């Protein structure tokens, strides 16, 4: 049996509590609050205590999906990404970069957001980038 505890940051609210994700043989089994964190000082709320549960939910998306004959069906990464890249290129060529919009997110990491807005601005060529900070 291999047990690991990995220090990380809670995905739920803006407090940013720190905890250790506990895993046994590659499956998450629990959470231990970080006592040295200046934010939560060894405490967590009910959301933090259970923040490992949804990760390995059977409802997680397992593969890319493409809509065919009105239905979303599993596809390979190559097929899905080529489809999206091709579609975006065509639309940008025909209607210009501002005919594309991008929603960034308050739930993904800084690095994810940075790469996303860089792609939107330097790749697609649009400042149509927003996320739901307002909401």
């Amino acid at each position, binding site marked *: 049996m291999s047990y690991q505890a990995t220090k990380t940051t809670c995905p739920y609210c803006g407090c940013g509590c720190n905890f250790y994700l506990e895993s046994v043989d590659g499956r998450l089994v629990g959470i231990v609050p970080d006592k040295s964190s*200046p934010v939560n000082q060894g405490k967590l709320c009910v959301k933090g205590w259970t923040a490992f549960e949804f990760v390995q939910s059977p409802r*997680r*998306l397992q593969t890319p999906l493409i809509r065919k004959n009105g239905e*979303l069906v599993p596809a390979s990464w190559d097929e899905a990404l080529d489809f999206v890249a091709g579609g975006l290129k065509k639309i940008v060529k025909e209607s210009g970069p501002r005919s594309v*919009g991008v929603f960034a997110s308050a739930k993904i990491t800084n690095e994810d957001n940075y790469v996303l807005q860089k792609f939107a601005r330097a790749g697609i060529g649009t400042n*149509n980038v927003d996320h739901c900070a*307002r909401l």
Partner: protein
Amino acid sequence: MAGLAATFGSGAMTNSIDELTDADVIFVIGSNTPTAHPLVATRLFRARAKGGRVIVVDPRGISLRKQADLYVQHKLGTDAALINGIMYVILKEGWENKAFIESRTEGFDAFRAVVDQYPPERVSQITGVSEQDIRTMAEWYAKAEKASIVYCMGITQHTTGVDNVKSLANLSMLTGQIGRESTGVNPLRGQNNVQGACDMGGLPNVYPGYQPVLNEAVREKFGAAWKAEGWEVSLDQGVGLTIPDMLHALDHGEMRALYVVGENPVMSDPDQHHVEQALAKAELLVVQDIFLTETARMAHVVLPGCSYAEKDGTFSNTERRVQRVRAAVKPVGQSRPDWEIIQDLSNRFGYPMHFESPARIMEEITQVTPQYAGIRFDRLEGEGIAWPCPTLDHPGTRFLHKDKFVKGLGTFFPIEFKPPAETPDPEYPMWLTTGRAHVHYHTGTMTRNSPTLHAQMPDGYVELNPAKAREIGVEPGGSVRLSTRRGSITAAAMVTERVPADTVFVTFHFIEANGNVLTNTALDPIVKIPEFKVCAVRVEAA
């Protein structure tokens, strides 16, 4: 954000969470802190235990009132009038900080002229708050050695959201309760990385680090930083569209493709039917998420991202602290970290990107984002670092605006009270307000897939005052129908004194009773925050 940025030059929380513990007075407005930010609430309790006073101002009788030294229930949407009333008393009694106003601010005279029109008698009529309570709040806040303001969506989700925030900033400058330990104006961010998404330029008007897209020198800098072999970078010269404007553009055929990463606008935006109608018109809707959300179900292509527990990176919390996220397990199925998917897509689109890891991405971030310049992954091992962190040996910054505001002088803005965009009338005679419940998070994508949390609160509900419940003949748990000009929903009644008799409250976590079917898309003219918090509604037994 826009409100604080206009006043101080930065939209972030001015002080750190732990400083609240040492405040003498904490003024909490529009924030149901124990529910939305439990670990901030612990600081309020500790401050009280040390002899500090907590003032809670909220139109809903939130549970925090029981921990308050003074609880004030004002009428929905009257925040600006209430704060003007408090400032009137402060000026009248001479409790303002004249030295601070003189040396660190501008715009005082025009501001004072407006505040002078809000004597307590008038404010009491508008807000329903007693003159005595207005005076007490003014005295406690102004006379405190260290007073902090804490606010959340209850302040910002109005058509007057920016005005409300500016009013709070006015209050802090008037009394010099800013730029010191345990003072300041502190917006609590709803979602975990709202701060980071803003810092990273996830906004239509700024690049990373709040550098304006309209500034030519800034544009040149980014054009150079983002050069890539075999690709001509041609940056958009104008401000982009906000989310509501993008939905509008889709609806009117001016926008053809939308790439949504980690958002669920069908659930989180106001007026759900309008959102669905707009999204349905996209020729190419691409949704990247960890679950098949309501928005993903409408997509042409769905890309499986992986969760926080399966990837490396950083989040920036509500006090600007950049902290590590670390992969604990392998991604489920074929899911991949979002940055990898986006990079792969960019390469196929034709714009080359070759980041090897999130640590390398952070290195590029630090080169173009002054606030993050001194941050590296290896420096984040312990407690993380609060920006601004300008150099590699800088320890980070606990509170902002110490000897001068980020923008130089702080600006007083005169703020007149404006009533909410939609008020009750004979057809829709009651107030509807929305918010969140403690076990759930935003649109419920994560929390409703968590068995423990789901078991605690499986269904949506409507909070209804006992008097109103009797009047329309609904028992606790019985079914009620809510109708607004935009649609109607049915949900179970939770009969509670938390809401006044003329008001109902719904959450937006549940698709089957989603409050956003009902809410108003009237927008704050500057930041375009929808008026989630108030609209007019009819309530019946169903």
